[in-house]
């Protein structure tokens, strides 16, 4: 690695957040308005500005870490490629039939989501592989190409291929993929075994189809971003945050975008676990509110909840362990996050029945809320906060002046008048409705899973999170709210706090009793060599690499495994069986006497960066401070207190304790401390509010 500084970039619907961690451990940050038509533009502009601020040149950058919502937005807005699917004859409907369950019971009004590939673009070829992997009907590459050509003539630009039993023998899928690439070089192709070489045809088909659907969009986005970085003189590796909260090479994101749908959002949650560990908070509700969406996740006993299957849905989106119905299934490791379409940019409107609604439409970065005076005329949550005096008259470190009168006019016209309310009452109504929506996301990961939110601390971040977190905590009876340093760019900070994790898996089917331990040991050596080579290539010194092995075991005929940590000293069938039984019994309070099956050997390789964010000692570069004594501002916190004068404090110089009402500002965000709450500073520089 030439450079020494690391940059993390998180693109949201409204702002692009950037953090630069310099060699001396100081971080610089910037919120840059997003450029939704060409998201890479804000990234490139932001990096240039940040380098200038830090007094660095492009060659000083060692790596660029990146979280992006391009994948999830493509699915949410159904703006992916026109996608085709080629299957074994007789099985083109596997995708649409799915696993036939419904998310609820007794609900005859349910509607099944439209498949990403309509039936007319699902086509079949003659080929068949048996469950043993033997070819029963050979594949005719000519037929595959003819079918693919037909799809392309009908407008398809990306093709997924899934053949039965390809997990046993991928020969046909690989041949079909090669034939299409050869004949139709401009068409994107995803073979199911390239993204999920596992049994179960629906899960594999659906995962491949989502990949094919988002691939052209994500591929060209990353290519443009890399080109732009190159033009700016930055040749450092680009790593993209995946749905599991880890980081992977940009090339992987271009080929297997299905692993990157929850990019960014997951990185924030992983950052929160690092943060919790640093300050001794084991139980956190992680609340992230940006311009377009708000999300919630749970850190319980220091652990993050993850899942292997994820179904993407409109409305409230939560992973589920066994619904298999509600949306677009991806069998990829994902951090468990609930999301709702409520953010600072969510538009408030009154429906035909006279009911006030907020979202799901967002004014985003363009045209933005009315108060941005960039062409937006619709009232948003941010406009409500400005009218109520909760937000200052400039945002994002002075880069954006807010037009209070435009916000008042928009709320007056679209909400206050139709409802016959004062502008203030309309604004507080917008805020309340947004809070109720966001409380749903928090409930989805707490109350709805039987977890009592009162046992948790709320960690509030994101551009708008600190403006709403204390009110939400009160709604949910949470007693304590934590605001990290630089909450407005916390997700980007989170990426800089983590290690790179790589998984290497070797399928290893059989009975444990018969397992060849010498061969297993050799396989462990193989995996270790592969992992070390990969991590070294990504710039990690041997001393910064750790390797951990697991073996997936289960009782005979089961479909789900238990991961058993293993070292070379444990390579003995009896020892492994005993350890498996012990773990199994601790989970189910019961264990069988039956045969144990082996399924996979897994290596988790971690690359540890020397220079990373330490949440116990975050050091920010000095930010411009208005200086002078605390100012007072009139603000409307709730209906009971009405307009009140509240002190406005600058976070950089905040210390001691402060009773609410108060407003604590920094260039990346604004913390609203409601009347009756108390704010103080902890040793790590977090602001803690007892609500």
């Amino acid at each position, binding site marked *: 690695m030439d450079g020494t500084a690391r940059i993390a970039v998180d693109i949201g619907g409204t702002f692009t957040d950037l953090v630069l961690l310099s060699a001396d451990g100081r971080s610089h940050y910037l919120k840059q308005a997003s450029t939704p038509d060409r998201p890479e533009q804000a990234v490139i502009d932001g990096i240039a500005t940040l380098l200038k601020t830090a007094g660095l040149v492009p060659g000083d950058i060692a790596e660029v870490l990146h979280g992006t919502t391009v994948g999830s937005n493509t699915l949410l807005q159904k703006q992916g490629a026109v996608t085709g699917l080629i299957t074994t004859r007789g099985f083109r409907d596997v995708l*649409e039939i799915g696993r036939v369950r419904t998310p609820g019971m007794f*609900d005859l009004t349910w*509607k099944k989501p439209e498949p990403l590939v309509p039936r007319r673009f699902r086509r079949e070829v003659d080929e068949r592989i048996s469950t043993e992997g033997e070819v029963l009907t050979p594949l005719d590459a000519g037929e595959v190409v003819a079918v693919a050509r037909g799809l392309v003539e009908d407008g398809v630009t990306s093709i997924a291929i899934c053949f039965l039993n390809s997990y046993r023998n991928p020969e046909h899928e690989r041949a079909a993929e090669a034939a299409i690439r050869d004949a139709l070089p401009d068409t994107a192709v995803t073979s199911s075994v390239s993204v999920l070489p596992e049994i179960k045809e629906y899960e594999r088909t659906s995962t491949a189809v989502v990949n094919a659907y988002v691939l052209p969009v994500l591929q060209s986005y990353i290519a443009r971003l890399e080109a732009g970085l190159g033009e700016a003189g930055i040749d450092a590796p680009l790593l993209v945050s995946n749905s599991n909260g880890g980081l992977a090479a940009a090339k992987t994101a271009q080929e297997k975008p299905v692993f990157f749908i929850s990019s960014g959002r997951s990185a924030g949650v992983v950052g929160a676990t690092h943060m919790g560990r640093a300050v001794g908070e084991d139980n956190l509700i992680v609340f992230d509110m940006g311009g377009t969406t708000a999300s919630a996740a749970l850190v319980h006993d220091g652990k993050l909840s993850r899942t292997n299957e994820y179904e993407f849905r409109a409305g409230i989106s939560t992973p589920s362990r066994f619904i298999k119905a509600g949306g677009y299934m991806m069998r990829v490791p994902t951090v468990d996050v609930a999301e709702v379409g409520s953010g600072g940019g969510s538009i408030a409107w009154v429906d035909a029945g006279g009911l006030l609604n907020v979202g799901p439409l967002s004014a985003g970065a363009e045209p933005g809320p009315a108060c941005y005076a960039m062409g937006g005329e619709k009232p948003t949550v941010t406009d409500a906060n400005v009218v109520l005096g909760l937000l200052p008259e400039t945002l994002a470190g002075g880069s954006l002046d807010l037009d209070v009168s435009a916000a008042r006019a928009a709320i007056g016209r679209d909400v206050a008048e139709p409802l016959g309310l004062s502008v203030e009452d309309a604004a507080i109504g917008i805020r309340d409705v947004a809070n109720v929506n966001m409380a749903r996301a928090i409930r989805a990961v707490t109350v709805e899973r*039987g977890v009592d939110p009162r046992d948790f601390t709320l960690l509030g971040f994101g551009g708008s999170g600190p403006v709403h977190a204390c009110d939400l905590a009160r709604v949910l009876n949470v007693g304590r709210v934590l605001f990290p340093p630089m909450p407005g760019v916390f997700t980007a900070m989170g990426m800089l706090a983590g290690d790179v994790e790589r998984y290497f898996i070797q399928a290893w089917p059989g009975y444990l009793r018969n397992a060849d331990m010498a061969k297993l040991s050799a396989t462990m050596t193989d995996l270790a060599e592969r992992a070390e080579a990969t991590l070294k290539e990504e710039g990690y010194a041997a001393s910064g690499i750790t390797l951990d092995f697991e073996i997936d075991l289960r009782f005979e005929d089961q479909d789900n495994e238990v991961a058993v940590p293993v070292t070379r000293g444990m390579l003995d069938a009896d020892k492994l069986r005993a350890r498996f039984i012990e773990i199994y019994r601790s989970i189910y309070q019961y264990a069988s006497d039956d045969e144990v099956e082996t399924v996979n050997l897994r290596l988790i390789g971690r690359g540890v960066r020397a220079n990373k964010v330490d949440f116990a000692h975050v050091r920010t570069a000095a930010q411009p401070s208005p200086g002078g004594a605390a100012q007072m501002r009139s603000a409307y916190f709730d209906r009971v207190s009405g307009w009140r004068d509240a002190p406005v404090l600058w976070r950089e110089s905040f210390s001691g304790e402060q009773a609410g009402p108060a407003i604590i500002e920094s260039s990346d965000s604004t913390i609203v401390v409601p009347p009756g709450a108390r704010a103080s500073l902890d040793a790590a520089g977090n602001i803690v509010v007892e609500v």
Partner: protein
Amino acid sequence: MTQRNLDPITLAVVSSALDTIVDEMAYTVMRTSRSPLVRDVLDYSCTICDASGRILTQAKTVALHLGAVPDAIEAVLEAYGGTFVPGDIVILNDPYQGGMHLPDIFMFKPIFTGDTLHGFSVVITHHCDMGGRVPGSNAADSTEIFQEGLRIPPLKLYEAGVRNRTLIDIIRKNVRVPDLVIGDIESQIATCNIGERNFIDLLERYGESELRDYFDELIDYGETLTRKVIASWPDGEYAFTDYIDGDGFTREQIPITVKLTVDGDHVTADFEGSSPQVRGAINSTMSFTKSSTYLAIRCALDQKVPNNAGVYRCITVKAPLGSILNPQMPAPVAARALTGYRTVDTVMGALAQVVPDKVRAAGEGGNTVICFGGYDKETREPFIMVDMINGAWGARADADGIEGITNPSQNMSNMPIETLEQRYPVRMEEYAFREDSCGAGRYRGGLGLVRQYRLLADEAILQLRSDRYVNPPYGLGGGGPAAPARNVFNPDAEHEDLPSKVTRTVHTGDVLRHEQPGGGGHGDPLERPVEEVAADVLNQKISPAFAKAQFGVVFAADLSADPDATAARRAEMAAAR
């Protein structure tokens, strides 16, 4: 209702915590079970009852099982009453003592803290064999319950933590695939333990006596909401009759007749006039008849009504003793699920007169069950494939039906083809939508499914249970019926048209093709917008010929709709009515 001083947040948390406990239980069954029928198709259900046996909540699994729990737990309480001790586990499967059919083993684990009984952790699993004359123990053509397999009255599988070896050994000796059956029983045990542990956590978190008040409140709340909805329905009597094709011996139509009486905030379902009990194994015991009725009515209630015992208080079910819906011992019952589905269809047909907007047209008529059972030629290892095919929904008053969907009484899944082929000597040749099988209407029904199997083993017993072969799924509000079921044996050779219920010996290379009915339509097909018909034609869900015959929409050779020919055809069809 008594006035209780309860905290609304705690009430919400407790309600959701109960839901989470049963979902965690359901997840445990999936993770620990052995047979694909359980771990992949998800033919099981979980619930938590309080100490008096009232259902507190249900997992999102087979809904139709749970209405039978009140009768089952009554049988358990009658057998053991106050003699439970910590560490006990009771099982039963006898349809004439709380059960439904022999493959469904109910398991109850009493939950104690100290000596105080707080409730029961309950798991019902459909085992892939329970012995008897036909592999899978599901045959429609048995004539008395003694042919159907091993009957288990309420018995303690564990007594104070000690395993009842006698009972386990008897089960092991009487079933064809003992490792799978015992493995799935062990999965039930693990699941009861998880339910018990999480329920005790909840008791400790909120206090035992406080929680009792919250449970009462939740059940009362379920009752209050249910009564409110029923009170909004017009009082009166509403009758409906639907039919089963035959019992496997005769092809004589078997009527299921209901008279629903809405009286204020209470509903009575009286099945007087339904068929007497039949010779074949489709008799439904009273617990299952109640369960089916509760379920149909529950579907017409609001979504926010909690799924607990409060709902049942508002519904009375009556069926004459000796009828197909309340048979007398030793009537066979193995394939009784079919009668349950038809009971649901019948009650919904009556409800369509009460709340026309809440009820859908008939769906596929219940899952089709296909079993292949036999022994490997070389190893003599037994195999039993129990596959269940789901399904299609009928159209709603404001939306099309759904294709590729569980029957609403179950929430089951399907067996992945790759799992099926890996586990059984069977190859799947097709799994697809059945074009043109929907009922026409302003809103069309869902398409049925096709599933075609080829036997690879030397020899096997095929057992098939399907229906809606003669009586297709009905439409509502002027919508048409769906296509009826079809079963074809060796479609590329002798092409034998099979009846709806079959037990026969088959051999290597034999092919069974099942074509499931679709769902009925809703409203006048001539009012379906041309674009919607065109979209279905373009997507190859219906053929141009079907579009012309059923919807009066005429397509040119390039599949564009011809407006003039369509107008003429629609006028002609309207005039012919």
